[in-house]
């Protein structure tokens, strides 16, 4: 087909996946990769069973146990009987429907959004879905990757397609070079602080600008991961040499001449000059700083140099009330510097920040230092592969010597479905993506930060500006 209009990256992917389109109906899109995990899939497999349906494309479907697997000694049994029931159900379902599964002992196990890129399954131009909102992570490769609900999981299992209303597009341009001490996590926290938790609702974000293209694939994944925290349907970055270099040689990547062909195709996956987005935001990279969330959603965020906001400065009654409620929940006083706030726990992990670069960043900060006596700090690598690589580089030794707990891979305290949870009132510096009430444990208080900031906070026992550290 010839297109006379310049098209955005998103439109190119969308148009090449439409199976059927009728006015007044959401389009039917073909799915190239379907990732499955234990929490959002049992009811979907049950639905198939009841209707006597099969999995249409087992070759495009892969499952992993990650959300409630214990992240300590693998030789111990799963103590929680209900978690065990869910893990067993996934195993049984995969067996019955012929879906490849990485169970908790697999050398390929890890958080679903970390292992798919690691294996080279995540590729530019694909439509990737998973019953998990942080599927947006895979957009870092120039894929259209989106989270879906369990009924949609069942729909994709049965038909390999997804019904979607076409989203709008939004360009977020991070112009110029990011200052030292400002990580990918700070870029995305800064974006959410600027546009708000519903700022990109109904839109697919394309991140552009030097501060984005300068990022490694790990960093781009961190940014795209939290697109959902700005309300976006998905986030994406156009593929470039950084992307191709990351994919080359991975187990599911195209080989030899096929790889050559693929990169030629992938190189065309960029927004044409003059293509039109429904919305545009520009942020000057030089204005970004290390950020910390102070409240109970990721939009409640301030630079480390700032003070806790005062509800009297809220723009309206609704905001005032939500700030007051957040301050009460977080047990914080307005107008005090965030660097005066001390912490009890540190969690370095999750699909936002548990890739090898994140572990390296934490180890660099922790080297030769000791975790504060008041703090319990843990590092949970995102996958078995990340864990092994970190161990090969000796990062585990550095972290353990500094007093960090070094765990096996999984989601762990990102959502506290496994035994790692915050106790009521405990305050945690966390590299994960959600600071919602009770997310990391009922009554627990979460502050989202970068791995560098989390590691430094572990050592000081309170928040510090990584730039003066």
């Amino acid at each position: 087909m010839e297109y006379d209009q310049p098209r955005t990256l998103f439109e190119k992917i969308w148009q090449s996946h439409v199976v059927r389109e009728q006015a007044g109906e959401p389009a039917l899109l073909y799915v190239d990769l379907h990732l499955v995990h234990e929490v959002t899939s049992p009811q979907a497999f049950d639905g198939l069973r009841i209707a006597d349906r099969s999995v249409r494309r087992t070759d495009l479907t892969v499952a992993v146990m990650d959300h409630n697997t214990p992240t300590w000694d693998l030789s111990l049994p799963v103590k929680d009987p209900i978690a065990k029931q869910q893990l067993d159900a996934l195993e049984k379902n995969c067996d019955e429907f012929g879906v490849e599964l990485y169970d908790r002992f697999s050398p390929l196990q890890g958080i679903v959004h970390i292992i798919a890129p690691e294996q080279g399954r995540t590729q530019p131009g694909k439509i990737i879905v998973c019953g998990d909102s942080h599927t947006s992570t895979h957009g870092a490769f120039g894929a259209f990757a989106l989270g879906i609900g369990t009924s949609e999981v069942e729909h994709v299992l049965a038909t390999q397609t997804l019904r979607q209303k076409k989203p709008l597009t939004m360009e977020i341009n991070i112009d110029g070079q990011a200052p030292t001490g400002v990580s990918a996590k700070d870029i995305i926290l800064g974006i959410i602080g600027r546009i708000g938790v519903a700022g990109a609702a109904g839109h697919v974000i394309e991140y552009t600008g030097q501060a984005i293209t300068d990022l490694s694939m790990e960093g781009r994944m961190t940014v795209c991961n939290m697109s959902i925290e700005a309300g976006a349907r998905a986030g994406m970055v156009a593929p470039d040499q950084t992307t191709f270099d990351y994919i080359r040689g991975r187990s599911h990547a195209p080989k030899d001449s096929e790889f050559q062909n693929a990169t030629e195709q992938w190189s065309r996956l960029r927004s044409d000059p003059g293509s039109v987005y429904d919305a545009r935001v520009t942020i000057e990279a030089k204005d970004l700083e290390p950020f910390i969330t102070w409240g109970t959603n990721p939009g409640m965020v301030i630079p480390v140099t700032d003070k806790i906001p005062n509800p009297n400065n809220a723009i309206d009654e609704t905001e005032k009330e939500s700030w007051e409620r957040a301050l009460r929940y977080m047990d914080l006083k307005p107008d005090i510097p965030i660097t005066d706030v001390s912490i009890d726990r540190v969690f370095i992990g999750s699909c936002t920040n548990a890739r090898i670069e994140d572990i390296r960043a934490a180890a660099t900060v922790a080297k030769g230092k000791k975790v504060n006596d008041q703090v319990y700090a843990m590092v949970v690598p995102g996958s078995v592969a990340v864990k092994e690589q970190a161990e090969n580089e000796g990062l585990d030794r550095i972290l353990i010597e500094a007093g960090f707990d070094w765990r096996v891979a999984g989601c762990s305290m990102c959502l506290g479905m496994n035994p790692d949870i915050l106790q009521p009132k405990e305050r945690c510096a966390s590299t994960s993506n959600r600071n919602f009430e009770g997310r990391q444990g009922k009554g627990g208080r979460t502050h989202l930060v970068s791995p560098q900031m989390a590691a430094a906070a572990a050592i000081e026992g309170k928040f510090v500006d990584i730039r003066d550290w």
Partner: protein
Amino acid sequence: MEPFIKHTGLVAPMDRANVDTDQIIPKQFLKRIERTGYGQFLFNDWRFKEDGSLNPEFELNKNRYKGASILAAGSNFGSGSSREHAPWALMDYGFRCIIAPSFADIFYNNCFQNGILPIIAPDNIVVDIINKSRSTSNYKLNVDLKNLKAWDQDEDIVFQFKLDEFRRNSLMNGLDDIGITMQHESDISNFEKTRHKHGGVLRD
């Protein structure tokens, strides 16, 4: 799925913006492998105090909202996690309709899969509904999906809402999306046969 054509129900207010799915159904209840039985855990951490007793401050615990089937809520309702357990819990508790100025995308989609109607209404209308549900006892709304219209008992608040034809039709007929898609089996197989042609970016 139970068809949704017309519904009249008691309105309960939830006057907060950005209510996330971690609040609607906290993660400790996601380990079940069924679709039912989540209503008892709806808004668990807000509904119950630390000792497990009912929190009398929380709106849904007030006697006057017992049996409510319509929830009027603040903007960006259902943000965060994609968990479909959120609409399952709302449905199981008895909600058939949620009215808010805006919804998070995944949650909005998930509602339709379970026969819940999410209505997007202008801010001022939602505020009026919330206020009236507080000031008027036994405050009810009527929702007519066929005519895309809602009104309250004394016809003080009357408004039209929008919904795409496909969603409206599926809800009204209680149709299951998978069944509909399977009628297009030939489109899917044809697409699969020519997959490599679609920009050539779909190969594994």
